[in-house]
């Protein structure tokens, strides 16, 4: 258009109104009414709402379930710790039972002994190789160390006091002759003391016997 105007610039003064008029005539545009297609608002709004709500609720649920599983993980971890501790305790108890010393102790309790040498039974022909007479000679193996010897300090020599002559006889005489209550009471007390001493001695002896038994067990 601009090139058209510029080339025909000389004839502009007289021709222009006519041409322009025709152009205007040709170019007259009428306003067309806008055909507005109104989309329904409701589905869109509800879609957005659903998406938003769904997102929020989903996120919430997801978060909750994550949190839930975190709790579960913690409690399961704790349980695993407890169980592995228990497993370890049981394993160490088992190891204690498998200790060769423990096995030997139980075997000896059943009367088993370690033989001097092995014997071999040939399953094919039923012959026994080895020195059968002497191989069976078992020996009881002492499983525990000997108890340390009792230090002599614990058994001091008994102190023997010889009373001056006559003193013992006098007391006896007094005791048998006197009839008053005071002396009787004293005698009773003496008797009590003697009884106490006896019982003490007995218990000592018992404990000694027990010790002897223990020693024998250890032998």
């Amino acid at each position: 258009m601009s090139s058209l105007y510029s080339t025909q610039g000389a004839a502009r003064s007289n021709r222009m109104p006519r041409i322009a008029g025709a152009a205007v005539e040709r170019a007259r545009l009428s306003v067309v009414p806008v055909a507005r297609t109104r989309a329904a608002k409701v589905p869109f709004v509800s879609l957005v709402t659903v998406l938003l709500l769904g997102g929020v609720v989903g996120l919430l649920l997801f978060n909750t379930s994550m949190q839930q599983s975190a709790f579960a993980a913690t409690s399961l971890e704790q349980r695993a710790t407890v169980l592995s501790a228990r497993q370890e305790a049981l394993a160490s108890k088992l190891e204690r039972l498998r200790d060769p010393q423990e096995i030997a102790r139980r075997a000896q309790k059943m009367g088993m002994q370690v033989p001097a040498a092995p014997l071999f039974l040939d399953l094919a022909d039923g012959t026994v190789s080895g020195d059968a007479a002497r191989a069976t000679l078992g020996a009881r193996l002492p499983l525990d160390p000997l108890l340390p010897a009792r230090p002599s300090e614990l058994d001091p020599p008994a102190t023997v006091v010889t009373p001056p002559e006559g003193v013992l006889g006098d007391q006896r005489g007094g005791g048998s002759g006197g009839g008053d209550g005071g002396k009787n009471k004293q005698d009773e007390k003496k008797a009590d003391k003697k009884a106490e001493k006896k019982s003490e001695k007995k218990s000592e002896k018992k404990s000694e016997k027990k010790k002897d038994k223990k020693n024998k067990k250890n032998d």
Partner: protein
Amino acid sequence: MPTTRPMPSHEAAARRGHPHFRLRVGFVLIAMVLSVFAGRLVQLQGIDPKAYAEMAAAEGMDEMVLPAQRGAILDRNGEPLAQSADGLMVVADPALVNTDEEGQEVDRAPELAKFLSGKLDVDYFTLLQRLRTESRFQYVARGVPAATATKVVDRAEELGFDGLSTWRDPVREYPADDVAANLVGFLGTPLADGTPQPLAGFERTFDELLSGTDGSARYAMAAGNKLPLGDNTVVEARDGQDLTLTVDRELQWYAQRVVRQTVQQARGDSGLAVVMDSRTGEVLALADHPTYDANAPLASDEADLGSRAVSDVYEPGSVSKVLTMAGLLDAGKVTPRTRLTVPGSLARQDRTIGDWFPHDTIRLTLAGVLAKSSNIGTVLASDKFEDGQMRRYLAAFGLGSATGAGVRGESAGILPDPSLWTSQTQDRIAFGQSVSVNALQMTAAVNTIANDGVRIDPSLVRGSATTDAGEQVGTDQATTQQVVSAEAARKTALMMERVVDPEAGVAPGAQIPGYRVAGKTGTAQRASSECGCYDGTFTVSFAGFAPADDPRFTVYVVVQNPRNGGGGGSVAGPAFAKITGYALRRYAVPPTGTPASDLPVEW
């Protein structure tokens, strides 16, 4: 009521002040407050912002150590000699213990001490004292199995005791107590952060292999739970490796019990036994007495915490006659039937050599010299060696050099230097004096005879492992060396068989019913370092192998200073028979069924 309404007076206007003035004051105040904020901002962001950022990050983060499990020490069959378990320490906060719910001070120490001493095996009075100490941290018990500790602390909480908590404290268990404790060693009380303190034995030598590397984990935590999408970094722990020994736990146990019985019956100072697989040089048992309980090492004497079999040296005595004979046979100087005229005593350059039994001039074969353990006969035979030949043989048998089996504190023993080697020295060394050995060395030397003249380095570790001194030890590193010919070794074994013969030899007690046994007794005077002389005490020993014609086990038993007057044959011989018999049974070695050696001992 317009008349009563007060008009804004001049006073009121003055009180409110001028608006300009009020505005300025307001601005100044705001500016002051803002400049405080600005200053704080500069302080936070300008000066050391990293520390604050870290503090912010650490808020809500939980960092924990992922402990590496210490490797176990296993025997040749995979039985544990030492193993680790997750232990806990129980600690108390005495301040919290002695406070009731209202915050009042009460004395709950006796109650709690009573409860805990019953459950945790700790002393009541020690605990009571600790719980009454003015502090916030007191140990109650250490190294408690995790299950027990948790149970006890939970129960205490149920009973209303406050202030108890548990912390990680790994436990090292030695399920068989004193079995192989001399080799395995022990750990001391771990440091506060749970780092173990290896103090002795393989625990210390192979600590690097056993200990592993701790890992760590960082989590974002809230109320004791990990945040699901929070930061977390985990560096996995690298567990320690297991160490497998060549020792057989059952055999080791039996050997230890037999050695203890033998030492106690002979009223000796100490004793030891070594059992070696003749073909591989693997040590199946290395027993020491006295030894210690690895679970309670402090209860024993410090001198008993190692292995005397490797750390102590002594003069081997007549056992080393075997080595002399094998050398002579290999050099082709003698045969087992070589005839020797043995006088009652033999005057040499500086001293007179005698025998352990009084005799006139007797006529013994070389086999007889060994069977009767005649010093004079051995010296006469060893005269046939050329110069330096005997020393070369003994050095090849491994005398005078450490075995390198990996045991801490090994003494190499003494084989006199060639410059100090005189004919007198040679005389004495021929029957086992003036030379000192450790028991493992001597076992390996005798095993050379059992293994067709090939010496194998003794080993205690299966495979290969690096010691803390940087040496590689183990079965993979064991080297072999032909010391004497197979023929010489076989002939020596035949001569050694005569030692246990009831008529020809001196050690019938070492017989194993049904088997051919080759062995040699040793009864050596003990040199005292105090007086620099022989102090009148003895080392008695017995070394041998069975079956004599196809050896499987080489066993060496030594008892130091027996006070019952016994010699190698009567003290160590029966112990040898018991241990070897047990080994033959355990490994199901049948008797060879061949007739025993009948070499003549006299002519």
